[in-house]
């Protein structure tokens, strides 16, 4: 290290060069876990053949794609890759949108099972639970993304400052 780091803020920035963005990565892993809780609840419901449609097939495929993409984002943001932080935010938005798709529809649809406990396909309790799961997942993904962007930007800025410093030192030596 050519320069001497003095303030805590400087040290904090310098630390970014050697430490991974574990906070964002772990937030995304938690978001995946929350999503898992969501789909386990949906697929575990006994509401006749209500969910046996093309949409539920697409939902399963989406879950797989979501988990894979989220995991890749987790690894990406860990290494301060800006693109993956953006993907994480997009995934968060999609998780929010999902609330208005299957859960909302099922909550509003009449239960086809005769004598069922709840009048709608998705009872109010379950609706609250899955909405919370998706909501938490969305918030975690968004937070991970924003933290990732902030840290990555700070690191890139700091790195270019260091590169500039090195360049100045080299010029000085050349002269």
């Amino acid at each position, binding site marked *: *290290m050519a320069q001497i780091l003095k303030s*805590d803020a400087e*040290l904090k920035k*310098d*630390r970014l*060069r*050697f*430490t991974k963005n574990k906070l964002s990565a772990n937030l995304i892993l938690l978001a995946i876990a929350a999503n898992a809780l969501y789909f386990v609840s949906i697929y575990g419901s006994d509401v006749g053949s209500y969910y046996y449609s093309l949409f539920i097939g697409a939902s399963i495929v989406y879950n797989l794609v979501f988990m894979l993409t989220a995991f890749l984002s987790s690894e990406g943001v860990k290494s301060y890759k800006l693109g993956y932080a953006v993907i994480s935010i997009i995934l968060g938005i999609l998780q929010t949108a999902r609330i208005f798709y299957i859960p909302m529809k099922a909550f509003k649809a009449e239960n086809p099972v005769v004598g069922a406990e709840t009048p709608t396909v998705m009872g109010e309790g379950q609706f609250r639970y899955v909405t919370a799961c998706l909501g938490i997942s969305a918030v975690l993904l968004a937070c991970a993304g924003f933290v990732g962007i902030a840290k990555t930007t700070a690191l890139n800025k700091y790195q270019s400052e260091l590169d500039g410093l090195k360049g100045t030192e080299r010029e000085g030596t050349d002269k």
Partner: protein
Amino acid sequence: MSDLRLQHLEKIYDNKVQAVYDFNLDVGHGELIVLVGPSGCGKSTTLRMVAGLEDITRGKLIIDGRDVTQMPPKDRDIAMVFQNYALYGHMTVYENMAFSLMLRKENKNEIHQKVLAAAEILDLTSQLNKKPGQLSGGQRQRVAMGRAIVRKPKVFLFDEPLSNLDAKLRSATRREILLLHKRLNATMLYVTHDQTEALTLADRIVCMSMGHVQQIGTPLELYDHPANLFVAGFIGLPPMNLFEVEIRYAQAVSPDFEIDLSYEEYNVLKEYEGKTLVMGVRPENVVQGGELVVNVVSNENLGQNTLVNGFVGKHKITCKFRDWFKYKYGDRVNVSFKKRHFFDKETTNAIRI
């Protein structure tokens, strides 16, 4: 005050095998002590007892005035560097070096500063983001040393740290350890079976055999004044030439030669008149010219020196001559002995001239 004190340390394993006998040593602050000896002599066991990795059967271990005999390793304020580096393969160099401090829950900024400082000392700054698998053996060993340095322990322990390196790297890393020792002025205990390492690194050497300390002294003391036959044979490369001789009328007599003793030698050895002693001569103290005849068997050129192996009568002898010679099998070379050591054949102890 000494940083490290080993008092009557003994190790007896559960199977009743005694690995270390009555080990006593006072290590001063900033001293680099090398424990040297052949495999199985108890040097690593002693080091592991200091580290707390082996229980101490008897005796006391005092670090910086505190009796740590019964303390667990983590409370002893020591750091150990292992032969196989013992790095975490999934962590970067930075993380490996910072790990012990993170476990202690130290301030992250302080950890960062300590790691950077250690990395700069060890010339590892550009490698901090790499994983151990991407580094050479020498660099890995430096990371292991860095991990020890960041903790600023009272005592550094090195367990054959250079054994996994090739000859060239070993010599370079040896110099780095020496520089590191000078820079940190740290108390170090270093185990090796390589006498070159011992001679070049140590402030003092502890030579061990079969669990017993044979001699403690500076490298020069061990080389010039070995305490017994074991030390004489172990320290020095090639090893000392040993001949059985009888002291007879101011001469050292063997079936193959008769050597006139000097006044100083005879003054001491006259009480052994008629007895058989062991005479030792270092290969570099065998010089060309004289009455003894060496029948050459082999000639090894080492650049600046030539090693000549042969026989004086029935005695094997190795001579280390300066300059480049090309003796052939069967050549006869006249030699004499410049400096001689004498040992009691029964006790194997040196007879001080």
